[in-house]
């Protein structure tokens, strides 16, 4: 596991050094926030907790906490997910 994380960090650093998008090269999560109603997450690693005030999204070595009101996981597949509702904050845990 530790070895895998080291590999991810190396890829991240390499992407940064080569001026390449880290989400494409290293599979780092990519978040798109559209206004305060829609959050699209690519390269996620699954949902860790699900409630209507907060949702924890796994992102490899990172965890994102999305908090707000009436949050809903609209659609989800292996690569992407879409969260809707009144998004008040996103926090990297």
């Amino acid at each position, binding site marked *: 596991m530790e070895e895998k994380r080291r590999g991810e960090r190396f890829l991240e650093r390499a992407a940064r050094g080569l001026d390449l998008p880290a989400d494409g090269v290293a599979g780092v999560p990519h978040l798109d926030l559209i206004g305060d109603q829609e959050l699209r997450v690519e390269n996620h690693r*699954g949902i860790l907790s699900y*409630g209507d005030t907060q949702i924890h999204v796994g992102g490899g070595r990172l965890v994102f906490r999305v908090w707000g009101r009436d949050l809903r996981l609209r659609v989800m597949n292996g690569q992407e*997910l879409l969260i809707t509702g009144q998004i008040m904050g996103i926090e990297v845990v």
Partner: protein
Amino acid sequence: MKSLLHKARGVITLTVTGVEPERFLNRCARQGVFFWGSEPVDPLTIRVKLHARDLPAARAAAEKLMCQLQVEREEGAPLVLRRLRRRGGFLAGMTLSLLAAALLSQVILVVRVEGNVRVPTAVILTQLRRQGLRPGAFAPLLDEGAMAQQALVELEELAWMAINLKGTRANVLVRERVEKPALENAAQPADVVAGATGILTHVETWQGRALVREGDTVVAGDVVISGWMPIEPPEYSGLGELGGRAVRAEGRVEGRTWRSLTAVLPVHSQVKSPTGRETRRFSLCILGKRLNFYRNSGISFGEYDKMTQVRSLTLPGGAELPVCLVEETLREVERFSTQIDRAGAAALLEQDLRRDLAALIGDGEVTACQVSAGEERGLWRVCLQAQCLEEIGRTVEWPPGQTDGA
């Protein structure tokens, strides 16, 4: 649109209860089970929607994660079909209805003919019926081109025909053949003869030799302008006749004529009178097939009048459907002899005679007219005598082989 597609595939709303229901969502996402509309019910329960075909995969995932899966609601086409499977009669009826709608929309209900003036529509429809185009025909089995060609062969007065099948309607467009005008053979020698007996009032010769002059009396058939023009020898030359030249005589010959026309009508006539006994019978015609609503087709009356009234089913646009109710009224009558109304008969016959006279004199005019009526041997006779001014010249070609005139 998306909702319709979901409904077509069947939508299942289910709740997943477990210690970590989020893992169920993660597993479904990894296994390619498409879900949407998820919402947390409580910290241990999530409600989610997915397609009916993904339910077994979702069940397996829930079982693997030790979650409890409960189907809350099913909707969409697969559910309806599953319900219908239990109601065989309804399903069969619906299938038959759909089949009937699909097939009946291909059946010709109306045949409309356009573009004909001289050729009656009924004649064209009868010919097309022989070819197979009639109300009730199945459109996909018809070959419009072949039918139109065959109908053109049979109906010589038509020059062109097109059959357009549009749904349940067949529009038949026709163009009639233009009659070839009668060609006058200018090389054929001819005389102008008197078409009627009379006194000539005007003779105008355009070609040929006039044998009469104004004021002469001619009998029908007399040559008025001859097509034979003799060549006169030079004066004082002492030469005999030099022969002649045959031409087509032309000219205008007007004369005063006296026409006498007679018409008769029997004084006693057989008329029919209803006895008061009548019977009615009904039948229904659907796509040309007749369905009688009576058993005995025999008629007990000795003499009867038959009146048929056809009530067709008509669309708001005016198009008649091939469904009609036929009502036949048979009214018993008895015959008896009675005298005709002489004044009425005289007026009727006079009207006929004047029409005949107008046809006889063409562009001519009637200068005096006298009508007399009287009974003679059981006949009511009306006689019309008229003095007319009319063109009486008629061109009569010489018989083949004749080369010189009289």
